Structure formats: C-alpha cells, structure tokens
C-alpha cells in the first residue's frame, strides 16, 4: 500500500511538479496535495487532507457492548487444575477479554486481566532472607473453592469426612474405596517414594484443610507451606521468583500473581510427571513450496 502511494505520487511528480528543495517532508506533502488535480492522485490527496484536518476527531467506540453468549472455557497451566471462563469487556473501552483461549488446545494464552479472581496472599512465614518485603503486593488465586468443583460437587470434604481424632485413624497405606481418580493405586502413591501417606499432608481432624509437619492446620490456599516443609530448596527459589510462574508486574515489589505449587504440579502424581503432559500448540507453517515430505528428508540429514 505504501508502495502504491510512492509510485502514484512520483508518477505525478515526474509529470511536471517541482519537488526540489523540499523545506520539510510534511510540508512538501501538503504542497503537492494542494496542487495536484489529476484523477490519479485524488485518493491519496483526500487521505492527506482528512488526516491533517481531522486527526484528533473522536473515534467511534465500536467495542462490542454485549458479552459473548458462548463463554469460552480454558485452562491454566495443567488441564484439570484451574479452569477460567472468558469474560469480555474487562476494560469496556477497548473490549478486552480477561483471557484468550487457544482454539487448538483450549489453554489460556493471553491475560487481559492478570489478577482475575485473585486475593492477597497474606503473610509468608519468615525464611531468613531479605525477600520478605516482596510479599506485600502478592496475590494468589484461592484453591479451596476450586477443589469443590473438581470432585463434581459443591460440598466440602468434611461433609463426607467428619472430623476424627488423628490418633484413632490408621496411618498405614490401604486400598481406597473412593478417590481412585486422584490416586489410582494408594500402595503406589507417586509422591514421597512410599515414605508418606495421605494424612501426612491432609488434615485428619479437618478434611477441609491440610496439615504441616508440625501438626499445624494449613489452608488449601496456602499449600506452599506444606510443600515447602519438605522441599526447602524449591521453596526458597519460589519465594525469590526463580521457580514457578508469576504474572502481573515485573518490578521488584510490584503487584504479582504468584502461582502456587499445586497449580503446576499434581502432588499425587508428581513422581511420574513433573508436569502433566499436554498437547502442544501447532507448529509454524512450512515455508511456501515445501511439503511435509521435503521437511522430513531435511530432518534426517540434520538440517534445520
């Protein structure tokens, strides 16, 4: 398109107009458009005039006003962990959605609102480093609410599991009658290499919460406190921002959403897969004229 204007304009220029000693390029363009009367240059001239006269005219707000009826569902990080619904008009002026989902894998690809559904993370246990100040603006997405939906009910765990005295519960691995979707074979729990069992992390006295090594009750929202009590090195890296995902502002001390351990790792299968395998997004288009077969040949010979 630019080339078209170049060509068209200079056709006119060479046709007789002076373009020597341009005082300035903007000015020259205006001079030309005022003098040009040929049909050939009319479109271009109109553009320039419109531009100069009405450049600051208010643009029509054509952002879609109604939210999308068919709300898209996408998942963050690992499928089955955290789902999000696409909401349009997070910033009505521009018509941003809160997220954009991948048409091929259904994964969240883009965050219009990185803090959607989050709440302040709160106090962090002190750890003897200097990063404590960075927690003031930290937010997380609460997990406790989500756990109700993955077991397909709206009930809390305590509805089926009334509180029990931990002392009376057998803390030995045994075959589970339920929750086999979460732990298929409890004799072969893929966490801790047989050294731990459900009640080392899940609070027997209150099934709606977790329990740490000291027997202290920990909310599902703060699962990192339980994870960190064994995985100290990773916990330390996570606190510093070297491990795990964060969204929001890049500034030190800026508002950030911290992703907690269980948003990326499934604690019950973490030994099998660090990350649950997922479907990748499609590869880039092959260069024009290159077929899949050509490419396979190239690969065998070590080409890139």
């Amino acid at each position, binding site marked *: 398109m630019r080339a078209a204007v170049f060509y068209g304009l200079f056709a006119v*220029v060479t046709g007789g107009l002076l373009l020597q000693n341009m005082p300035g390029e903007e000015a020259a363009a205006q001079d030309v458009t005022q003098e040009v009367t040929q049909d050939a240059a009319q*479109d271009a001239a109109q553009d320039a005039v419109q531009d100069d006269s009405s450049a600051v005219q208010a643009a029509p707000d054509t952002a879609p006003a109604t939210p999308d009826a068919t709300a898209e569902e996408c998942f963050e990080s690992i499928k089955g962990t955290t789902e999000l619904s696409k909401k349009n008009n997070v910033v009505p002026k521009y*018509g941003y959605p809160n997220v954009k989902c991948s048409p091929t894998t259904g994964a969240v690809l883009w965050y219009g609102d990185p803090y959607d559904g989050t709440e302040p993370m709160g106090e962090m246990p002190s750890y003897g480093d200097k990063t404590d100040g960075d927690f003031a603006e930290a937010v997380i997405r609460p997990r406790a609410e989500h756990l109700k939906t993955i077991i397909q009910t709206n009930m809390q765990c305590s509805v089926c599991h009334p509180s029990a005295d931990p002392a009376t519960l057998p803390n030995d691995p045994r075959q589970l009658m339920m929750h086999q979707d979460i732990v298929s074979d409890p004799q072969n729990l893929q966490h801790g290499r047989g050294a731990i069992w459900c009640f080392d992390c899940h609070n027997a006295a209150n099934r709606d919460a977790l329990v740490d090594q000291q027997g202290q009750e920990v909310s599902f929202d703060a699962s990192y406190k339980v994870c960190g009590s064994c995985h100290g090195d990773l916990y330390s890296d996570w606190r510093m921002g*070297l491990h795990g995902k964060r969204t929001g502002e890049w500034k030190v001390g800026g508002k950030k959403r911290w992703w907690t351990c269980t948003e*990326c790792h499934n604690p019950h299968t973490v030994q099998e897969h660090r990350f649950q*395998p997922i479907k990748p997004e499609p590869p880039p288009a092959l260069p024009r004229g290159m077929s899949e077969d050509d490419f396979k040949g190239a690969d065998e010979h070590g080409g890139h």
Partner: protein
Amino acid sequence: MSEDKRKSEMVKEQDDGKEQGNGKVKESRRDFLKKMGVAAAATVAAPAITSTTAEAVSLGETFQTHFELMSDAQKEKAIARLEKRYTEQFGKQTTVANTPAPDGVLFGYALNIAKCIGCRRCVEACVKENNQSRDPAIQWIRVLRMERGNDTFELENLHKGSPDSNSLGDYGIQSGGHADKHVGLSGAAEHYYEPEQVPEDNAIYFPVQCHQCEDPPCVKACPVRATFRDPNGIVVIDYNWCIGCRMCQLACPYWARRFNWGEPELPNEDMNPKTHYLGNRPRMRGVMEKCTFCLQRVREGRYPACVEACPVGARKFGNLLDPESEVRKVLATKKVFRFKEAFNTDPKFFYYMD
C-alpha cells in the same frame, strides 16, 4: 553495566547519529525516494494508486521522518493519524501509545531450558499480543526441539557415510562424521515437531527469539537506521522508516527477524487494540518485524506476554540493573549460558538450568 560505560555508549551512539542519522540518512532517503519515483513512473504509475480509504496509507505517513528525529508535535500528529486509521480499519477503538522508556532500567530475560516443555504457548501468546499476521503466518518465537543426549558417538554412526579408510591410506586422516551427520553433536534441531503430547521423554526444547543484543548486528546492518536500541536495551524498529531491504535479517545470528512478504492478515476480532508505536501496532507489507519483549507492556510495568503464558514458569523477566530482580538472581545463583556467545553480540537473553 556501569553508569559510565552506558553514558559513553550513549554518547557514541549520538555521535553516530549526528554523522549519519541527522544528515546523510535523510539526504539518502530523499534521493532514494526520487530514484524510486523516476523508476516507477515508467512502469507501474497509474494502476497502483487505487486504494480503499480504510487501508490507505496517508501521504503524511509516507513522508514522516524517523520516529527518533520527530519533534513532539510531529509524533503526536503521527500517532493521532495512526489511531484513526487503525480504529477505522479494525472496527474497534485502538490506541497507539508513545510511553517513554522507564529510567534506570535495562531489560533482561532468563529462560530455564530444564523446565521448558515445548508446548509453544509462548509462541501463540506472542502472536495474539503483538498483532502478528495470521496468514501468511508470522511468529517471533521459534521453539527448537533437540534429542536429549548424544548417540552419534556410537561406532555404527562414527563411520556411517564416510569413505572407506583404505582409500585414504593409513596416514592418520580422521574419518567419521560427514556433512549429513555430525559426530560429537546431536546437531539436528527441528521446529516443526508435532507430537501428541509434550514433554517427550527424549527431547529438550530450546525457544529462540530476539536476544536484544548489547551490540546488535542487525542495527549495524540497517542502511537507514530504521532499527535501533531503545534506552532500555530493546532493539526496536520504526516500521514506517523500514525500507524492507532485509539486511538485518541476514545479519541476525539468532534467526529472530521476520519479513512481511504479503499484506498481513489480522482478523478484526483477534486484533489487540492496545498498541505502542514501536511495539505491536499492525505492520504493513514489506517491513521487518521482531520481538520487542512486548514493549507496549513492559514499559507500563507488565510482564511480556510469553512470560505470562508459559504454563511451567520457565520464563523470567526483569531489570538487569536491580540486584533484587528475578533475572539478576538467576544470574547470581544458576548455571547460565548465552546463545552463540562467540559472536560477541552480548545478548540480554540468558538460558539457565536448575
């Protein structure tokens, strides 16, 4: 980097600018335009000018000067012009920001290749954020897949395809390995991989994008200084000043620049209306484009889109001048390397491992 060194570099760049940017380039561009006009007049003059108003590039835009040389008034005018055009073209209110580079910041990027699972969500997020052309498809990030480990030292491979050692005589001439099969390196890296699921057991993934070199070969190669380093160390392009010669693409050792061979196709509903002049505003045919660490986002304090999209948190971004930032802590505590370090391009993009 020390403050003094930065200053001296900035002075050096300004001097360069005086010699080439302010004087000669303007002159040579004008000459170039004139020559083009003369050449074009003979051949494609009249039919080429037909255009619709929505897509037309105004004369003002055609004749605007290099963005860095514009006065504030000229910049405002140029931006208002673009906002109006994009708003009309894409049917949604579009802003073209001119957010200045924040002070005291040198952007750096760190990528954990031990974590990357090759899912390409960064690639797709980049396309969505930065208004890349969907067809012909342009992607700024390329994820290379390599075989884990190295089995080319196996005896079977060592002599595969090499001449019979008898034919060379017994003079200690090294045989083994040949043009098609490297020995000692796994060699092949491919980016068209398409498995059912990632990560694969036998692969590592190596995403490559613009490395934002401290000493960028692409900037040196540009004959019209359409590409340059911004004060935060990001290499940017003035798309309106780019003449599409593709010298920078040839100069880049990281395969990080993309050229718009065709008219970029960007569906209205997919267009991201929040843009920056030097960042993700829609590009035109015949210009170069590249990763800018999502300049439109990072200048306003947000992480780049690829960082936010990475499902495993392998990507870290921050201020290299701040010792408390994530990238500086990566540099201080992890095993770090830079890609093609021997070229002395000093990338601000670091790969690391746990």
